[in-house]
């Protein structure tokens, strides 16, 4: 058959994947701490074409056979801050992740929209404990909570002037952030060989980090993906027309 029809179809499939990823970025445009993804395509290994008729076999050059999604990379840019006034909202300024204790092990997140559990612990919206340097952070019930810019959690009893420090948020960095896999629920899982390192990144209390999705970029990418898809579909149709000629017209007599 005509090789080009598969090449063009691979282009259509790659643009479908790109639209899927853009849609996910747009769906999460209001998700706290969401980090956008981009698709990176690569071409299939090109074939070396060789002349086999009329004399010795000689190479005549390479020929591409299409494209595929090679990688979906997460862009860990800083998102914008939104001041909420809620004392248990914490935003990270710069690199780093909060460490969350889940039943499946430690997970990492940039979503600092925390709550106080019925047991008085600092937890995520899913109820998983937020880890400090010395384990889960126990807030108790009656206190005002202050979180300093270096993540120290202080409790102030009603009527007391002195605040009592009860721990420090554990914030970690990764040398290679590509070793983090998205798991949903705003959480990242680290690849087995990725080692979290202690971070000195600052945090901001009573603020949240918004998604780093840029609406303009995503809309442009959406248009670009759609048009590439359309162009590839035209190439498929052209190949189909060519095949139609070959099948119906070449052998026609009279």
């Amino acid at each position, binding site marked *: 058959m005509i090789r080009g029809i598969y090449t063009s179809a691979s282009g*259509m499939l790659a*643009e*479908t994947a790109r*639209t*899927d*990823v853009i*849609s*996910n970025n*747009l*769906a*999460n*445009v*209001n*998700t706290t701490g*969401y980090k956008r*993804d981009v698709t990176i395509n690569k071409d299939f290994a090109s074939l070396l074409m060789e002349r086999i008729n009329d004399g010795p076999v000689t190479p005549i050059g390479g020929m591409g056979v299409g494209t595929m*999604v090679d*990688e*979906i*990379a997460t862009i860990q840019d800083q998102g914008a801050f939104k001041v*909420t006034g*809620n004392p248990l909202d914490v935003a990270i300024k710069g690199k780093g992740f909060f460490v969350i204790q889940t039943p499946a092990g430690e997970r990492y997140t940039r*979503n600092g*929209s925390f*709550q*106080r*559990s*019925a*047991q*008085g612990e600092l937890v995520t*919206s899913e109820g998983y404990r937020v880890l400090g340097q010395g384990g889960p952070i126990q807030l*108790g*019930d*009656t*206190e*005002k909570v202050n979180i300093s810019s270096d993540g120290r959690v202080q409790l102030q*009893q*009603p*009527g007391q002037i002195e605040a009592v420090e009860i721990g420090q948020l554990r914030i970690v960095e990764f040398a290679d952030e*590509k*070793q983090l*896999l*998205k*798991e*949903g*629920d*705003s959480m990242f899982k680290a*690849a*087995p*060989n990725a080692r979290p390192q202690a971070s000195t990144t600052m945090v901001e209390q009573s603020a949240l980090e918004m998604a780093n999705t840029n*609406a303009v970029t*995503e809309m442009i990418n*959406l*248009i670009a*993906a*759609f048009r590439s*898809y359309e162009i590839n*579909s035209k190439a498929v*149709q052209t190949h*189909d027309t060519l095949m139609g000629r070959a099948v119906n017209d070449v052998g026609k007599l009279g």
Partner: protein
Amino acid sequence: MMRALWTAGSGMVAQQANVDVISNNLANVNTTGFKKSRAEFEDLMYQTIRAAGSTTGPDSQLPAGVQMGHGAKLVATTKMYTQGSFQATGNELDMTIAGDGFFQITMPDGTLAYTRNGAFQRDSQGRIVTSEGYPIEPAITIPSTATAVMVSKDGRISATIPGQSTPQDLGQLQLARFVNPAGLSALGSSLLVPTAASGDAVVTNPTVDGAGGIEQKYLEMSNVQVVDEMVNMIVAQRAYEMNSKAVTTADSMLEIAAQLKR
């Protein structure tokens, strides 16, 4: 079919919930003691098509993988218990709590509910009741001859009775506190009930353990900030719109795919 259709659709559903929550905040902008809610979102699960770190050769690994997301979801509508502003009313049965804590209300079925709405009334028997007629707990009855009711900061209620030189003590108002007030479940009518997430009520006198003092002749307004809500509404609408564009794009792509075969 195209994943993008469902992914962007989930974004539209999430933003619709966002608008619902914002609308309820705006509808209650003048509701005494109302606490605003905030919709919180998280991303849905990811499908790993190629895992990062998988081996590609004797001494090489994939540095990054292919993970496809499936959209967003509403994960919580959190009530924000920041203090609302005070409004002086001059009505002696209007009370506001300056601090954390909730008034305790006895429901018709005998259970307790909790509220920040301190716009109380007197019923035919002289009991202090909510606008629905539910008495406060512990019940306090005002004598019919009383000419004035006084509520002290620490919750002692007394009344001036004609012919008596000192005010008559009527009882002690008590407040409930919760470890996690965000976990309370709203019943409507400004009433809240505890859940497993909120923890049990801890009953104290006002001004004790951060329960807050009582201010008589004041009401607590809702803590809804109109500007914030309007900005959130604009953001939610635009997000909805962008997701709808992704849905139509995915739809057009499907149409093209269907037209490939002529």
